[in-house]
C-alpha cells in the first residue's frame, strides 16, 4: 500500500498500463509538455515520448473520433478532455459513433477507447466549466461509465477501463484530485466494473452517493449516527454502467429506506433513474418514498455563496434521511 493523491493514482494507472501494453497511448489538450491541466499525466511524455503521449489541438470531437478510429484498428487510446463541459463538443463521436459502432456493425469491430474527463463544482469556474454530466453518459447504451471516488478506485477502475473492450466514459472529479488514500502497489490490481463499494454498513437507511457525493454521504452518515442514532449504509456504485443494482436492492431490502445523492441536475438525473429502478423492484420493501438530493436545477453560478448552495452538502443529506423517518 502507498498513500497517493487521487491524481497520482490515476497517473500510476496510466503509467502501468502503458508499460504493460504498447498499444495504450494518450491524446489530449496540454497533456504532454504542460503535464495536463490537472497534472494527471505529469511526467508521462518524458517517460514514454511523443509517439505515445500526444498533445492535441483544441478539437474535442475530432480527437475523440480519432480515438474511435484508432481503437477500431487495434490501439487502446486514452483521450483526456479538459473538463466534462468540453465533452459536449464531442457528443457526436461519443454517442453516434463510439457507443454505436460495435452494435451497428453487427459486432464485427470493438471500440476499446477510454475518454477521461473531470467534473464538479466548487472552484468558481462558472456555468461552462463546473457541471456534472454523468447522467448524460449513463443514458447511452454502448457506453460504460465510471465515477471513481477514492484514490484506490481511481487507479483500479482506470486500469480496468483501459483493458476493457468497450468504450468507457471515465468521469473524474476536480475536487477529488487532491484527496489522499491508500492505493495498492500491485501492477495487476484492477477493479471490476459493476461492483459497488459499501463504504459504511448500517441497517436503518441506504444512502447511494455518486462520485464526490459518496464522500459527502459518508460524512452525513457520521452525523446521523452521532446526532440521530440512525445507522446509514453508504453505497458508492463506482460505475453507473454496469450498475451494481443487486447490491443496492439488497441494501434497500435490509434498511427499507433509500436516499440518492448526486451533484448533477435533478431532471433525468442518476437519482431519478435509480429511484425508478428501486421502486419497481423493491416497492414492497420501502417504508418511505425514495428521496433524492441533487444539485440545483440551474447553470452553475460563479458567485461563491451561490455556487456553494447549488451543490449538495452533508446537512442536506441528513435532512433527506430524516425526512424518510418523518412518519414514524
Amino acid at each position: 500500500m502507498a498513500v497517493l493523491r487521487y491524481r497520482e493514482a490515476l497517473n500510476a494507472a496510466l503509467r502501468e498500463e502503458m508499460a504493460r501494453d504498447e498499444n495504450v497511448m494518450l491524446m489530449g489538450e496540454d497533456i504532454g509538455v504542460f503535464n495536463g491541466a490537472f497534472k494527471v499525466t505529469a511526467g508521462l511524455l518524458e517517460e514514454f515520448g511523443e509517439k505515445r503521449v500526444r498533445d492535441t489541438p483544441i478539437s474535442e470531437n475530432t480527437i475523440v473520433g480519432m480515438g474511435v478510429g484508432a481503437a477500431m484498428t487495434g490501439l487502446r487510446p486514452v483521450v483526456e478532455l479538459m473538463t466534462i463541459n468540453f465533452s459536449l463538443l464531442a457528443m457526436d463521436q461519443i454517442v453516434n459513433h463510439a457507443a454505436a459502432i460495435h452494435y451497428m456493425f453487427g459486432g464485427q469491430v470493438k471500440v476499446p477507447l477510454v475518454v477521461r474527463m473531470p467534473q464538479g463544482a466548487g472552484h468558481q469556474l462558472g456555468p461552462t466549466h463546473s457541471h456534472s454530466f454523468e447522467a448524460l453518459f449513463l443514458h447511452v447504451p454502448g457506453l460504460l461509465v465510471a465515477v471513481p471516488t477514492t484514490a484506490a478506485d481511481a487507479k483500479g477502475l482506470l486500469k480496468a477501463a483501459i483493458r476493457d473492450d468497450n468504450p468507457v466514459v471515465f468521469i473524474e472529479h476536480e475536487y477529488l484530485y487532491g484527496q489522499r488514500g491508500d492505493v495498492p502497489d500491485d501492477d495487476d490490481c484492477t477493479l471490476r466494473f459493476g461492483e459497488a463499494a459499501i463504504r459504511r454498513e448500517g441497517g436503518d437507511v441506504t444512502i447511494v452517493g455518486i462520485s464526490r457525493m459518496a464522500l459527502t454521504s459518508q460524512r452525513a452518515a457520521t452525523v446521523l449516527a452521532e446526532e440521530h442514532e440512525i445507522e446509514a449504509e453508504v453505497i458508492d456504485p463506482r460505475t453507473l454502467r454496469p450498475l451494481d443494482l443487486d447490491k443496492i436492492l439488497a441494501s434497500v431490502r435490509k434498511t427499507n429506506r433509500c436516499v440518492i445523492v448526486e451533484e448533477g441536475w435533478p431532471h433525468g438525473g442518476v437519482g431519478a433513474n435509480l429511484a425508478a429502478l428501486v421502486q419497481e423492484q423493491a416497492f414492497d420493501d420501502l417504508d418511505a418514498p425514495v428521496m433524492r438530493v441533487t444539485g440545483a436545477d440551474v447553470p452553475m453560478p460563479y458567485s461563491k455563496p451561490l455556487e456553494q448552495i447549488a451543490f449538495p452538502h452533508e446537512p442536506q443529506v441528513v435532512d433527506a434521511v430524516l425526512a424518510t423517518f418523518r412518519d414514524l
Partner: protein
Amino acid sequence: MAKPLADPPAEAKLPQPDVAREWLATMVLIRRFEERAGEMYAKAKVGGFLHLSIGEEATIVGSARALRDDDYLISTYRSHGHAIVRGTSPDAVMAELFGRVDGCSKGRGGSMHMFDLSRRFMGGYGIVGGNLPIAAGMALASDYRGLDEVTLCQFGDGASNQGTFGETMNLAALWRLPVVFMVTNNQFGMGTSLERHSAVTDLQRKGEGFGVPGMRCDGMDVLDTHTVTCEALRIAREERRPVLVEAVTYRFRGHSMADPEEYRTKDQVEEWRKRDPIEVFGDRLVAEGVLEEDERLRIDAQAVQRVDAAVAFADASEHPAPDSLYDDVYVLGEQVQGWYSVDERTPTPHRGEDERAMGGARLPAGGAYEQAVEQAAPESAGDKPADAAQDEAD
C-alpha cells in the same frame, strides 16, 4: 450551374484488358445492384432511407481499385457500392438492406451502415462528417504501428462544411498521417447546390489552409479517378502526408428515395447523363478493341443475374431473432457483473444481457415483431409506400 468537367484526358492509357473489363463489370454490378435496391425500396422490402450512388460508380471503382488489400476504405451513408467494390458479397449487402441476419451488419445498420472488417471496408456512417476523425484515427493506428497501410476516406461535398473537416485536416497534416481524403463532389449537399452551400466551390483547395494539398480528378472517368487516387495514395504512403482529392461527379438519382428533386433541372441531369461513367468507359473499351459488344452485353446480363441472386438470398434470409435484440450492445466477458442494460419493455425489468438466456420469453405485448415479419413476407411485395413513390418518376 454545376457542369461536368471538360472531356477526360483522352491520352490516359487503359490498364490491362482483364483489369479494364473487371472495372467495367464492377461498375455495372454496382449500377444494377442499386437499381434493384431502388425497386426493392419501392416494394417496401427495404426500409428507412436509401441513398443511391447511381452516376458515381467511376468514383467508387476508380478510387477503390487504387487501394491495396491492407489499406482501409471508409465511406458515408451512400456506400452500397463501396462494400461491393471491396469484395463484400452482393448477397450480404442486399440482406443488410432487407434487415436480415445475413446482412453484412447483421441487420443492425441498414443502408447507411454497411461494414466488412475482413475486407477492410470500415463502414458507412450516417452522420455527415462523422467518418473524418475516425479515418484519421485509423491512419494514426497504422502509423503508430509502423505499417505502410493508407486509409482512404470518402465523404460528400456537404461534409466539407462540417467542423470535423477542418479539425481533421489540421490534425492529419500536423501529425503527417497516411490518409487520403476524397471529397465526392456530386454537386449537392442533399438538395442544396454546391455554390449555395460552400463559399469556396473549388473543393480541392479547402484543405490548403490546414496544410493539406489538393488534387482533382474527373469522378465520371474511372481511369482518371484511378490515376489521381494512385498518386494521392503514393504521397500518403511514401511521403507521410495527407492529400485531399476532389472527385467531380454527379448523382443521377435523388439524394434519397424520398426526393422530389425540385432543386435541379431535368436539363442538368440530362447533360450529366451524357457522361454516364459506365457508357463512356464501355464505349471506349469497345472502340479500342478491348471488349466485344456481345461481351459487354454478357457483363450486363451477369450483373443482373448476380443481383437477382442477391435479392433471392436476402428474401430467404431470416429476420434477426427477437432475443438477439441486446446482442453486441456490449462486449461482455464470461462473468457479467452488474446491469449493463436495463430492459423496461415488460412489467418485469431485467438485464438486457440476459435476453438471450431468457429465450425471448418476455417479448413485449402487442405482437409488433410478428406484424413486422409478416409485412416483409414475399407475398406482400408490391405494396408501395406513399413516400417512396415520389422518386420513381426519375
